[in-house]
C-alpha cells in the first residue's frame, strides 16, 4: 500500500516534470536562439489553460482545445515575435524584462476582463475519466497517463525536430552564431519567428493539458514561470536535452517533496539550484 502511494507520486512527478519540460524547452530555445528573455512565458501557459477552459465550456470536450492551443499558440507566438520581440532582440536585458512584464500585466488584465477572477475547474474528457487498475490495490488516472503519453510524444518530436532535421540544424547553428547563419543564406528572422511560435505553442499546449489537473485561476502562470527558470538554470541554457532531464528531476523532487516532507518542499528545488550554481554553473547537464 505504501509502495502503491510512492508509485503514484513518482508517476505524478514524472507527469509534472514533462509539463515543465514543455514550458521550459520553449523558454530555453527562445533564449538560446534569439537571446530574448521572456518573462511572459508563464502567461502564455495561463492563456493555454484558459483557452482550454473556454473551449471545453463551449464544446463540452477538451479534445478540440489541444489542437486549438497548438495552432493558436503558433499564430499568437509568431504575431508577438513579428510585432514586438523582433525589436527587442538587440536591447538590454532590462528593456526585455520590462517589455515582458508589461505583457504579463496586459494578459492578466485581458483574462480578468474576458473571463473573471475566480477559480474554474475544467472537466476531464469523459473518454478518459476513469482509472487504470495497475495492481490489485493501485489504480492511476487514465487522463494523467494520456498527459504523460502526449508530453513524451511532443518531447520526441522536439528531439527529432532539433537534432535530425535541416531546420533543426539551422536552429542549433543560430544558437551558436546568428551572423554565421545569415551568411549561409538562411533567413535568421524567419527562424526566430518559427522558434517563438513553437515555444508559444508548447507553453499553451502545456496550459491546456494542465487545465483539468489543477483548474484555472488568476496568476497561475507565475509559479510555472519561476520553476521553469530553475529548470533552465539546472539544465543549462539552450539545451533541449538538459531541459528534459532537469524538468524530470525538478518534477520528481517537487512532487515527492510535497508528499513526504511538505515543510522543506518549497525550498528544496532552490537549494538544488544553488548547489548546481556552485559546482556546475553552466548547468548540470551541460557538456564538458
Amino acid at each position, binding site marked *: 500500500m505504501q509502495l502503491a502511494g510512492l508509485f503514484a507520486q513518482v508517476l505524478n512527478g514524472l507527469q509534472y516534470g514533462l509539463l515543465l519540460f514543455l514550458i521550459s524547452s520553449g523558454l530555453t530555445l527562445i533564449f538560446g536562439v534569439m537571446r530574448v528573455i521572456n518573462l511572459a512565458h508563464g502567461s502564455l501557459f495561463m492563456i493555454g489553460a484558459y483557452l482550454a477552459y473556454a473551449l471545453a465550456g463551449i464544446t463540452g470536450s477538451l479534445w478540440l482545445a489541444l489542437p486549438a492551443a497548438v495552432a493558436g499558440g503558433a499564430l499568437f507566438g509568431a504575431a508577438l515575435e513579428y510585432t514586438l520581440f523582433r525589436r527587442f532582440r538587440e536591447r538590454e*536585458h*532590462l528593456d526585455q*524584462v*520590462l517589455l515582458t512584464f508589461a505583457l504579463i*500585466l496586459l494578459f492578466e488584465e485581458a483574462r480578468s476582463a474576458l473571463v473573471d477572477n475566480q477559480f474554474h475547474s475544467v472537466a476531464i474528457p469523459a473518454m478518459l475519466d476513469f482509472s487504470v487498475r495497475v495492481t490489485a490495490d493501485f489504480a492511476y488516472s487514465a487522463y494523467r497517463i494520456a498527459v504523460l503519453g502526449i508530453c513524451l510524444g511532443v518531447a520526441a518530436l522536439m528531439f527529432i525536430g532539433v537534432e535530425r532535421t535541416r531546420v533543426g540544424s539551422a536552429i542549433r547553428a543560430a544558437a551558436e552564431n546568428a551572423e554565421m547563419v545569415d551568411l549561409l543564406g538562411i533567413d535568421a528572422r524567419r527562424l526566430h519567428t518559427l522558434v517563438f511560435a513553437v515555444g508559444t505553442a508548447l507553453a499553451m499546449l502545456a496550459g491546456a493539458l494542465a487545465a483539468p489537473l489543477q483548474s484555472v485561476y488568476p496568476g497561475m502562470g507565475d509559479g510555472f514561470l519561476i520553476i521553469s*527558470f530553475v529548470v533552465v538554470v539546472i539544465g543549462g541554457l539552450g539545451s533541449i536535452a538538459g531541459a528534459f532531464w532537469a524538468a524530470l528531476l525538478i518534477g520528481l523532487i517537487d512532487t515527492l517533496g510535497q508528499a513526504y516532507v511538505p515543510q522543506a518542499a518549497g*525550498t528544496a528545488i*532552490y537549494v538544488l539550484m544553488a548547489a548546481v*550554481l556552485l559546482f556546475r*554553473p553552466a548547468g548540470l547537464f551541460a557538456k564538458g
Partner: protein
Amino acid sequence: MRCATLRGNLLLAVAALVVACMPFYASPYHMQLASIAMIAAMFALSLQLLVGGAGMVSLAQAAFFGLGAYTVYLLGRTLGRPPSILVSLPASAAVAGIAAALIGPFALRTRGFFFLMTTLAFGQMLFFVFHDTPIGGGADGVFIQRPDLGFALTRASRTPVFLLTDLAVLAAMYAALWWLMHTLFGSVLLGIRANEDRMRAMGHNVTRVKLAAFVIAGALAGIAGHMAALNDAFVNPELLGWHRSAEALLIVLLGGIGALHGPILGAFAYTLIGEFGRSITERQRLVEGLVILAAVLLLRRGLAGLRFAR
C-alpha cells in the same frame, strides 16, 4: 552613472524643501501620496546601485525590501512591544543585507540572463518562505506595531511626521549613494558596467566589488521596506514578490538608468501616473502595462535624460 551636478543637487534640495513644507499647505492624502513616492524612490535607488552602477539587473530586490518590512514585524513580536526606530531601522538593514550576502555569492556566479533567472528564483524562494510557512504571520499578511519614534503620535500628527521621516531617510540615502559613487568603489562599479573584463585585467577583484554592491543594495532595500512598514503598519508576502522588483526596474528606467537622481524622478512620476490611472479606470494593470510599454518603446533615456545633470 551620472551624478547630478551642484545645480542639480540644489534643485533636488529645493524639491525636498517643497516636500518638507507640505504639512503647511497639503492635505493628509497628498502627504501620504508623497510618502509612498519617497519609499518607492528609496527602493528604486537601492536597485539603481545595481542596474545603473554595475549593470546587474536583479529581480530579487523586492525580497530584500520585504525582509526589511518583516523585520519590523518580527522584532515587535519578539519584544512584545513596538521596537524603537533606532533599533528597527538598523535591524532591517542588517537582515536584508545579510540575506543579500548569503544569496549574492551564488547569484554572482552568473551573468546577464542567468543572473536574472537566479535572482528571480532566490527572490521567489524567500517569497514562498513567508507565503507558505507561519513564520511571517501567513499568506494574508498581518498588521504590525509601528516602530517607536521616541515621542507620542496622534492621528493628526502621524502623517506629517512620517512624511518628514521618509524625507530624511531618502535624503540620507541619496547623499550616501552620491558619496559612494564618487569613491574608488563607485568608479570600479561603473567600470564593471562598461567593461567587466578590463576591470578584472586591471587587477580589481570584480566579484568582490559586485558582491559588496549587491549587499549594500540589499541593505538599502531593507531600509526602504522598513519605512514602508512604518507607514503602512501592515506587511504581507506580496511585498517580496518579483512583480515589485519589476516595478522598481520600471521606476529606474522611467527615471533614467544613467543618473543617480533618476529613481527619485521616476518614483514621483510613477506614483502620479498610478494616481491618475486610478482616477480614470478600475483596471490598474492595463494602465501600468501601457505605461511600461510606452516607457520601453519611447522613453529610452528616462526623465533624467531631460537636462538636469551632465
